[in-house]
């Protein structure tokens, strides 16, 4: 092309390039920041990472400190959270998507669930402190109602106090809105024509849910459940409010055990002045990241392996 191109076109080419550069720049910034973070943590933390770090309790001496208690605490709290939040979340989603007719009440519930998913988790901590830890002050912690004996893992006292079960229920509150919304979206993605087919064959509403809608939506629901759990395992703030302990020298043995979790331990160590503690904080962050990565990989595997087309 010898003659000049029309101005309009070269301008369009220019803005095309500029936008490409801008988007590439944005991506680069995100990747750079993330890798800087990961690299510093890796440099600082890998030295402290060892088998004994995973299997010892906290200590005043950084060289001997380990994360057994927070690791097991995270496992317990998350397990309780999963047992509560997943069935309740799926049940709520089924009610809202499959049973509830369009009504004021339904839109009110829906609106509130959407709002709750945006509430800062520390607010749930305050609610849990009143409801679970103190039981609204109905019963004093010095004179609790007691169920079972202390040897059983289902040993229970009301009020719960700052125990594993209080922590698990708190996290369940935090992830419940996410769980409900994820399940609702999964159910909504099931084509209406499948429900109609099942109804026309003489299914009851529940048979439609059980034989058609839920199996079709389950892979997506499971993905949502695992992502909710990875949110739960990273929460520190609400557990701090309900009085999660920072120094614990035992793993939980029943629902009433004291506990701490990985994010709390990291928060504790990272806040100390001695640089040695910063190293083990970095090591604990690596462990936390590996756990998170494992959760997300499971979610991806489920999404890829189990999700099949619902319509041809």
């Amino acid at each position, binding site marked *: 092309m010898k003659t000049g191109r029309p101005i309009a076109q070269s301008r369009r080419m220019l803005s095309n390039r500029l936008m490409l550069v801008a988007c590439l720049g944005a991506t680069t910034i995100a990747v750079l920041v993330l890798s800087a973070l990961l690299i510093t943590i890796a440099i600082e933390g890998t030295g402290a990472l060892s088998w004994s770090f995973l299997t010892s309790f906290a200590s005043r001496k950084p060289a001997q400190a380990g994360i057994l208690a927070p690791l097991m605490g995270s496992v317990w709290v998350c397990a309780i959270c999963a047992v509560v939040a997943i069935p309740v979340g799926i049940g709520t989603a089924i009610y809202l998507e499959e049973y509830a007719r369009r009504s004021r009440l339904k839109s009110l519930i829906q609106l509130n669930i959407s709002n709750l998913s945006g509430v800062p988790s520390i607010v749930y901590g305050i609610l849990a402190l009143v409801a679970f830890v103190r039981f609204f002050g109905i019963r004093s912690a010095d004179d609790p109602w007691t169920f079972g004996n202390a040897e059983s893992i289902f040993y229970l006292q009301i009020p719960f106090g700052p125990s594993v079960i209080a922590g698990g229920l708190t996290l369940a509150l935090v992830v419940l809105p996410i769980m409900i919304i994820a399940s609702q979206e999964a159910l909504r993605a099931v084509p209406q024509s499948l429900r109609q*087919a099942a109804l*026309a*064959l003489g299914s009851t509403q529940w048979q439609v849910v059980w034989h058609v809608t839920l199996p079709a939506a389950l892979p997506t629901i499971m993905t949502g459940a695992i992502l909710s759990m990875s949110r739960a395992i990273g929460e520190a703030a609400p557990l701090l409010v309900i009085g999660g302990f920072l120094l614990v020298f035992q793993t939980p043995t029943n629902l009433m055990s004291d506990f701490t979790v990985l994010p709390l331990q990291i928060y504790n160590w990272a806040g100390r002045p001695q640089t040695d503690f910063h190293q083990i904080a970095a090591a604990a962050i690596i462990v936390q990241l590996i756990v998170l990565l494992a959760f997300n990989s499971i979610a991806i595997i489920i999404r890829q392996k189990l999700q099949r087309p619902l319509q041809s």
Partner: protein
Amino acid sequence: MKTIPLPKTNMDQPTTTSTSAEQSAAPAMGSAVAPRAEIAIEMQNLSAWYSKNQVLHAIDLDISAKQVCALIGPSGCGKSTLLRWLNRMNDTIPGARANGKILLHGVSLLDPTLDVVDLRRRVGMVFQKPNPFPKSIFDNVAFGPRLHRIYSRTDLEELVEESLRASALWDEVKDRLESSALGLSGGQQQRLCIARAIAVGPELLLMDEPCSALDPRSTASIEELIRELRATYTIVIVTHNMQQASRVSDTTAFFYEGKLVETGPTDVLFTTPKERRTEDYVTGRFG
């Protein structure tokens, strides 16, 4: 809950197509002899609404047993609505209501105490778009029988085979019953949906434009199937395709703007309609 007392139907043995030969005494399709068959469905003064929008106006229509009745008319004339009242699928639509009477073998279908789950078991439905479940071919056909546990006498496998034979699909799928139904072609999927509907042993089959999403060859095979199924089932079919109505149905009802304009034996309605609007519609002058 009222259930429908019905003469014992072919619930236990879905009839294979071979028996249709024995039923040749039934009036041949398009015969001018007025069929004196038993009335399966009686509608009296049936009106229906979606919220405040009236879509059916005082319909009086009888449908004979073991015949194909085609409902024709331009879009929005209420024929699909009428079909969906026959198995109360409209119950799932908020704001849908109906007045008047629909009797299926003398039982009122609009009775609020009627057990609709039981009704839908006796009234099969085939939808516009093939909608097989994302399950295997076998599980699709076995879905209804498993739901109602009606396979105690016959073996479930036998029932599935019979249903697939009756829907002329058996030879094409007998070697891959365990593979996904979504791998079938559109026409095969629609025949699978028919097999799924008849596996429950209904005596009435509703079809809502069953061929509108299919290519001409699949359409031809479904139409042939409809003609065969007529020996065993009462069939009500909604169609936009005039030729299809004339090919498959014994009687035709023409709807316009929610009113029943004319009904009669298909050949009469298509050749010597009484109403001007019917003539205009069946000859393609509007619609």
